[in-house]
């Protein structure tokens, strides 16, 4: 039973990881906090739902549609919240993303209704059974997807030209500008990429939970933010593994203690990490940027 709960935790955690990776890409490289990330995730879920259910497309197409839809939101985000706001006012883009999030979640609620929308049970992918353990194929594929994603992003950042630009921007924005890197372009790409990621996560999580709700963005969003910080802000890998760890801890707390404390768990961990190891579980010591 413990093993099953452990497994449940890993699978829940991969959901946090997927969302947290998006946050860490934006914050780690651009030093920007995007509080609309949770809502972009939610939009991905709705787009994917529509494509899968109303247009009867196979799952893979739905995931790609979700990513595309969310990526579009990312572009809109970039235009409205990050492109024109001067960098001297760090709070302004942050609050603009809060406004954007409000727009997204309320529009979704107007279009789809305030209640969550269900994924029909037939869309589920079935179960794997190893001895006494139940593993949902869907959860398994989410896990695999998250791992593949981490590897892919790692490769992009380390091996491609755009990746080099990203790392340069992370090191020193002004110098990068001097050597001719178009920071605007880098910003745009990162926002679109991480939003697309969030969108894909949105549909996968929606399928796993069986439903998408217009208001789920802030719940998941805040927790994923905490996951990112615990993992070490700039480390994509950190978000990945921390998400899993948090998932396991939460499930164990619910199973063996009480669900009343579950919400507090991630925040207690956050504070402990910030006090005792501020660079995060997987981060290397780095200069404080804000």
């Amino acid at each position: 039973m413990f093993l099953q709960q452990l497994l449940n935790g890993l699978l829940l955690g991969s959901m946090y990881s997927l969302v947290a990776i998006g946050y860490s890409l934006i914050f780690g490289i651009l030093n920007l906090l995007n509080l609309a990330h949770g809502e972009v995730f939610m939009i991905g879920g709705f787009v994917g739902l529509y494509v899968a259910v109303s247009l009867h497309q196979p799952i893979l197409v739905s995931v790609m549609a979700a990513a595309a839809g969310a990526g579009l939101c990312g572009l809109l985000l970039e235009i409205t919240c990050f492109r024109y706001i001067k960098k001297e006012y760090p709070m302004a883009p942050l609050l603009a993303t809060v406004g954007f999030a409000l727009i997204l979640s309320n529009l979704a609620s107007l279009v789809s209704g305030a209640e969550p929308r269900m994924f029909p049970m037939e869309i589920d992918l079935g179960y794997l059974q190893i001895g006494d353990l139940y593993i949902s194929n869907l959860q398994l594929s989410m896990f695999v997807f998250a791992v593949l994603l981490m590897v892919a992003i790692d490769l992009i950042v380390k091996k491609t030209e755009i990746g080099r630009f990203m790392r340069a921007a992370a090191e020193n924005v002004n110098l990068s500008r001097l050597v001719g890197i178009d920071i605007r372009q880098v910003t745009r790409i990162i926002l679109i990429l991480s939003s697309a990621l969030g969108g894909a996560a949105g549909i996968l999580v929606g399928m796993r939970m069986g439903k998408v709700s217009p208001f789920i963005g802030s719940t998941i969003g805040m927790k994923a933010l905490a996951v990112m910080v615990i993992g070490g802000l700039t480390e994509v890998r950190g978000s990945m593994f921390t998400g899993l760890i948090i998932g396991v801890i939460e499930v164990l707390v619910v199973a063996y203690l009480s669900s009343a404390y579950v919400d507090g768990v991630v925040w207690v961990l956050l504070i402990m990490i910030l006090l005792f190891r501020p660079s995060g579980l997987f981060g290397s010591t780095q200069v404080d940027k804000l």
Partner: protein
Amino acid sequence: MSPVIWAYVGINLILTLSLYLNFYCGQFSLGVAAFMGLGAYLSSVLTVTYGLNLNLALLISSAVTCVVGVLLAFPALRLKGFYLAIATIGLVEIFRVMFKNIPFIGGTAGFSGMVGTSLPLIYAWVILTLALVWKIEHSRLGWAMRAIHQDETVAEMTGLNTTYLKVVSFGIGAAVAAIGGGLYAHYMFYIDPDAFGFHRSLIILLFLVFGGQTMWGILVGVPILTILPECVPQLGGMRMVFYGAILVLIMNLRPQGMVPEDLVRRVHGRYSHMRGTRSQ
């Protein structure tokens, strides 16, 4: 316009001033919702269960919250900027979970039975708070806090006890937030833990930044943002979409806020030349 809205404006003014005190000292603490909640529950229990006079209850709960704030300030010293912000969000959520699990104050079912506030009383406290903050700004304490905000290392080098100052700003901010929370509780007649989550802190941050992070800014920004959603009932479901759009628009057009620092300075400059504590 309904008097209820003005009550909210008054309470929001106090809460935003609490946040302002922290930001003034360079501490980006978002813990205002936690201290608000603490003040709300403490003062409510004092008036409902123990029958204390409201103002007395407010003062006591404010003092207790101040002590809690001071204690929490010490670990907070280690954190700066974004890290402090997110740690204090964590604090808010942890307080919220704590409130939910204390049956004495009602837990998830909330706590009620409070009475006793009125618009004049709320504004009396608003004026007191404004006076307090103004006094601090124009005192040596305020000047020292601003020095830390400008550049902490230099401030330390000039001999300022930054630890003491930061702890003080944290504590006073907590005390003010507690007053706001207590007034909120006694106006709403009912509180539950969810009123004091990170959303609350975020909204208050919004007020502060929209206003421009100055006292005048707060006086202008808070009423506008509090009243705004109520002005357009005919929009129905689009109300919040409209609100979000306004936010995005204002942040693009005027990211420095309604009444930012340099605007205040320029206006001051037009009416007097030498200002001892504001010389830069």
